[in-house]
């Protein structure tokens, strides 16, 4: 951020002069001191502290604390609420030390003033935090002081955002010290504690973004759209692990006849090479020219100019070969004229465009292959480049539609990926159309979705942006697209005064996109505060935290992959998913956040578990390989090098040693009110403990027993329910569906009346143990007291034993009351003339 420093020096000089002036001024008058009585407290970065609300329940938090990996950014807040007006506030940070005398330099910290923006009326009906004055822009404190805005009205909350990034060489340990908050002539000491953990976050990135910024728009917001300013924005966003859409110096959608275009394209290729080699960069956009054509059906369609695209790709290839850099490895396209077409069912243009671009990629790859093969066998590099060329990702913002026939990389709203089957649709699509290594899943947000789905809206929680990355990791999504991140002018609305197409007040216009607060911008123009480049926001900090969390999850999984290789077994990613589910099960359900009262606490606990799992795997070689639950017993498989001591609840454990790797298996029956595994790993140098919580006691219900006892009733159309006893399983409730010739299978329904079992909203699952006579499909639906039947989906039963887990949240018990009826309906449509048998054994309720 070289340019930023220059301007900061100027600003600092100015402020020194100002300070000098104020010292002189104060020397010239009576030394009247302005003491300020204020409540000072601290908070984590997980909560937005609004300016006008009462947070007295948090006033007991006095210590500014961080738990952070090396090279990771973490933030926390110092807040104050003064009893009288404050003319000037500021914060002095100082070095911290640990018990061993190691120093954590104050230069590791950055301090920002929180600037408040008004959400006048909500745009997300389910906002947990409502309208009001939200902290959003984070202005560097020194610039805020220079602007003389560092004042605070009596009774208002004012926050300071403190960010730490320990260097890659910082010694692990617990550092303490004191920062000083100055409110006019009063000074408040704020104790600080930083725990630096023994792991270094890599600069490498395993996510890709396309966060849009039309570089020309900087003319209106920064009054400067030079390449230098574009670079400032580009670099700034890379610090947040975000790829801006398009590289500085080149417009994405260009005019081939514009002055200087050839030079710009050549410069772009050079810049592309830099970006390709930069491990912080995940995605680069290829520029294009809009065009139109007539497709095979006679429709006039919008498309791209193929000859221009070929020209750009040729430049890329020539450079790649000359410099031995694969410029295609991170490259993709985003043809904005095709944005959200599939949402409207409008695919003609998409089909034509993506067909022609894919044909171009294939054709060019074949041409180069033929040319190169004249000189002998292709090198590994050449093969890789050709593969990358063939697999250029054409991002298509919109959801999957049957009528799309041409290959592309869908970028749907997250709400179109809300179930395993929907994600599978997108996965199957990329698997079909791209080679391995290029099968990215992407998603995007904008004004939709709305809370409680992940958003970057102002009236959303601070954690929404962060937890979004957890969801992305869990659902195998690596790409994240945002249409604009520095919107400066109105889109479709009339909020705020506008001049020359740009908002006059960039910092106080929450609805830059008319319908939603915060959509279209995550940064503010730095010009107003003497910052060269953008000013960040609380929401963007959440994006950074999430992007870093993604890397920790990635690193953790890599250790698990390595353990499988060391054990010479095939890696099963479902096992890691099971472990990950342990961390996320309370954070969200599907893609919807669970905004319970203690959701912040739950997140911070999940992050703590992630920290310890990562530390355990990195420093002690301990891998929690799998977590499963069956018949009311949780099984946890752990492996570790033989030198690592494993204990549970303080008791040393033994496992099975194979080639120096010891595997442990723990069983936790869910019979207590609270059930958990407290696992400790210890080596000579390290000791870590992780507590895995498995929830409350599971209620085990013998359906046959309850049926006999009259507590569970069964209604079966054209069939019967009986208790049958098997030597292996004991009593089971047999459902016999009699399908008479000519009848459709799908009409046959068994309804279990479970109303006497008091299954309510406090329970998460019911798990049915079903023995099926043969492979068959059933649909499961539930009906609560005040509702109608709600489907929980179709289940494919295998002949023999099956465990069917049903999420009770599907039935909306919070609103509709206790579960009353469970319906199991034959799902196949075949006509038959015979019986089908399902036998239900224990049902587990709880979780």
């Amino acid at each position: 951020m070289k340019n930023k420093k220059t301007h900061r020096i100027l600003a600092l000089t100015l402020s020194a002069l100002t300070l000098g002036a104020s010292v002189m001024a104060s020397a010239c008058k009576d030394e009247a001191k302005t003491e300020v009585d204020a409540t000072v407290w601290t908070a984590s970065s997980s909560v937005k502290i609004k300016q006008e609300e009462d947070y007295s329940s948090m006033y007991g938090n006095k210590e500014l604390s961080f738990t952070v990996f090396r090279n990771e950014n973490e933030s926390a807040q110092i807040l104050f609420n003064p009893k009288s007006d404050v003319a000037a506030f500021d914060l002095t940070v100082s070095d911290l030390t640990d018990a061993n005398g190691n120093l954590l330099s104050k230069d590791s910290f950055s301090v920002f003033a929180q600037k408040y923006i008004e959400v006048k009326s909500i745009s997300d009906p389910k906002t947990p935090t409502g309208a009001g004055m939200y902290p959003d822009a984070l202005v560097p404190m020194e610039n805020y002081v220079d602007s003389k805005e560092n004042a605070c009205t009596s009774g208002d909350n004012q926050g300071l955002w403190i960010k730490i990034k320990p260097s890659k060489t910082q010694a692990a340990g617990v550092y303490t010290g004191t920062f000083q908050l100055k409110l006019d002539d009063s000074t408040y000491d704020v104790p600080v504690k930083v725990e630096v953990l023994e792991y270094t976050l890599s600069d490498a990135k395993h996510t890709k973004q396309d966060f849009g910024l039309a570089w020309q728009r900087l003319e209106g917001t920064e009054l400067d759209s030079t390449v230098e300013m574009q670079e400032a924005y580009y670099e700034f966003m890379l610090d947040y692990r975000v790829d801006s859409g398009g590289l500085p110096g080149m417009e994405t959608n260009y005019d081939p006849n514009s002055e200087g275009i050839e030079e710009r394209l050549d410069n772009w290729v050079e810049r592309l090479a830099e970006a390709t080699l930069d491990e912080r960069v995940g995605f680069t956009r290829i520029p294009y020219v809009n065009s139109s054509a007539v497709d095979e059906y006679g429709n006039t369609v919008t498309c791209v100019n193929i000859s221009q695209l070929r020209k750009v790709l040729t430049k890329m290839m020539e450079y790649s070969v000359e410099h031995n850099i694969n410029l295609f490895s991170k490259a993709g396209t985003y043809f904005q004229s095709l944005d959200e077409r599939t949402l409207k069912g409008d695919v003609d243009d998409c089909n034509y465009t993506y067909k022609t671009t894919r044909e171009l990629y294939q054709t060019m790859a074949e041409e180069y292959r033929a040319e190169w093969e004249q000189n002998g066998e292709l090198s590994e590099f050449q093969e890789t480049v050709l593969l990358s060329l063939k697999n250029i990702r054409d991002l298509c913002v919109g959801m999957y539609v049957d009528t799309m026939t041409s290959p592309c990389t869908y970028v749907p709203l997250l709400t179109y990926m809300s179930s395993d089957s929907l994600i599978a649709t997108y996965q199957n699509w990329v698997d079909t159309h791209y080679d391995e290594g290029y099968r990215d899943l992407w998603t995007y947000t904008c004004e939709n979705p709305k809370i409680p789905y992940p958003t970057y809206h102002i009236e959303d929680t601070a954690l929404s942006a962060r937890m979004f990355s957890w969801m992305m990791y869990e659902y195998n999504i690596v790409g994240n697209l945002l249409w604009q991140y520095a919107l400066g002018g109105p889109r479709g609305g009339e909020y705020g005064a506008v001049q020359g197409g740009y908002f006059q007040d960039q910092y106080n216009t929450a609805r830059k996109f008319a319908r939603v607060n915060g959509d279209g911008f995550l940064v503010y123009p730095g010009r107003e505060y003497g910052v060269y480049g953008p000013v960040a926001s609380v929401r963007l900090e959440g994006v950074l935290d999430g992007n870093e969390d993604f890397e920790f999850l990635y690193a953790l999984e890599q250790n698990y992959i390595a353990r499988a290789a060391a054990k010479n077994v095939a890696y099963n990613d479902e096992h890691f998913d099971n472990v990950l589910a342990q961390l996320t099960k309370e954070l969200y359900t599907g893609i919807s956040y669970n905004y319970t009262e203690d959701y912040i606490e739950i997140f911070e606990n999940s992050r703590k578990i992630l920290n310890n799992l990562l530390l355990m795997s990195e420093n002690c070689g301990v891998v929690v390989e799998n977590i499963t639950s069956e018949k009311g017993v949780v099984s946890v498989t752990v492996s570790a090098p033989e030198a690592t001591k494993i204990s549970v609840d303080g008791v040393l454990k033994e496992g099975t040693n194979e080639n120096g790797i010891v595997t442990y298996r723990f069983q936790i029956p869910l019979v207590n009110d609270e059930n958990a595994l407290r696992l400790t790993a210890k080596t000579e140098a390290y000791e870590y403990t992780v507590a895995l919580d498995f929830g409350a006691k599971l209620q085990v219900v013998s359906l046959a027993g309850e049926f006999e006892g009259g507590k569970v009733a069964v209604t079966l159309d054209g069939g019967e329910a009986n208790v049958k006893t098997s030597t292996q399983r004991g009593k089971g409730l047999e459902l016999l569906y009699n399908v008479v010739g000519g009848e459709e299978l799908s009409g046959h329904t068994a309804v279990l009346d479970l109303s006497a079992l008091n299954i309510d909203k406090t329970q998460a699952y019911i798990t049915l143990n079903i023995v099926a006579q043969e492979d068959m499909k059933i649909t499961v639906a539930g009906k609560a007291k005040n509702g109608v039947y709600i489907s929980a989906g179709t289940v494919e039963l295998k002949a023999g034993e099956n465990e069917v887990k049903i999420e009770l949240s599907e039935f909306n018990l919070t609103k509709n009351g206790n579960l009353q009826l469970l319906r199991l309906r034959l799902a196949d449509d075949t006509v038959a003339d015979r019986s089908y048998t399902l036998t239900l054994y224990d049902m587990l309720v709880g979780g």
Partner: protein
Amino acid sequence: MRKQVVKRSLALGACAVMAFSGVGCKEKVANDENTLEMFICDFGYGTEWLEAQAEEFKKTDWVTAKYPELKVSVDSLADQAMANSKIMAGEQGNTADLLFTASESGYIYYESGMYLDLTSVYDSVIPNEDVKVKDKMNEIKYTDRLYTTDNGEEKIYSFPWVNGFAGLFINLTAKNEILGADYVMPRTSNELAKMCEDIKASATNSKDAYPFISSSTYYRTLFTIWWAQYEGLDEYANYFNGIADGELSNKIFEQKGRLRALEELERIMGYDSQNVNPLSQELDFMSLQAHFFNGTAVMMTNGDWLETEMSELIKGEITVMKNPVISTITEKLSVVKSEEELAFVVQCVDENKDVTATQAAFNERFQKELTPSDYEKIYNARNLLNSWNVHEAYIPSYSTAKELAKDFLLFMASDKGIEIFMRETSGCQTAFTYDAETKNPELFNSFTTLQKDHVKMGRTAIPLHDMAQTRLVAYGGLKNLTAVNLQANFLSSNAAARKSANAVYQEDIEYYKEENGRFDIMLRQAGLKG
């Protein structure tokens, strides 16, 4: 119309000055518990009715006794978008105690606490009348406004300030000239189709009038009516709650009534019928209305505000028809199976014959027993009226005169308040029961033919559920039809752009099929699942 336009321009201009100069255009009023500030979207019905009601309210005995220092102000904006923006701006945008909106989007604020729960208002007895507010309105009108919160509580936030409706309007002057005064108004959709043929074939159709002229907005008015007639009100309501066969299911899109309604629309108002003036696709709405008023189209689907908006342009006599009963309803009846039988029962309904009298007449004519359920279904179908719940009043939670605002709503529901409304709107009706013909014959006689007929229809009218506030519509995004422009689908002169009724019907079924998960997403967004 000219007067209205001028007034509107002034209103817009004045408010533009307010918006950009910060200079107030009206006297500043105190924002306290004795001052009732009201803000209204001036869209279709004017604001005179509210101003007149305010004046009368200030003189009403029980009001002056309760509020001796009462002040009332009325503010308005004619531009609907600007008006809605002002309302959506909340406390920062206005200090109104009562907001009169013209928008379907009020529901989005229910969970946020922006509006006051009006349960107590509906449960209150209207002063000097022995009836509760909710009992003075059609039950469907009341229950359609009930909202169930995320916690399962039932509340009601909106208060209807007009009982607007959309329907099939007829230029009686044109019809009488072309078909004769004795021509029987269509009782069924088959008769409507025949009437169109008769209009086209008439030797006295001097203006070559088309049977219909139509805007795209109102084109689908008959779609919802015929659909609801075929399926019945309960099943129609089930669609908007996502319920098919007692279950939240995408099978709602398979309701046969949707297909049958589309088929009738295609048959009677599609391109091949030649019944709809081709200018329908080209002209703006006001020009289309002008054609209707001039008699160059005999019928037009429209809303009851057209007289208030267009009174100076109306040359002939216009009125509204009872909606013809969809002829294919016989598929859902047990005894009435022929067109003749159906028309006969409809005629009996129109003549206010009850079930017993109709049975007797039917049995005599057709020598078979008419079932009460057949009678009821035909009765409901014939009396179905397409009312719109977009004109709603709200008390914002930031109001400083909540009790006063509630009392004004009580006044609006009183006979006095209703009379004022009707007088000032040339006979438009409120959502509250008031038969002007019996209660105030002088007022009734001042009404136009249209409004008189509306009053008469209102005696037996069954409002079609307006489902904008069901969760699936409000939060899930469910529409009655995904097709954006049904008129273009059926009327386009470009054959390649036209779609058949079955194609339109299948589109929704295909769009929401289980595999693509869209219906599941809608349920979750609506908070009905997961």
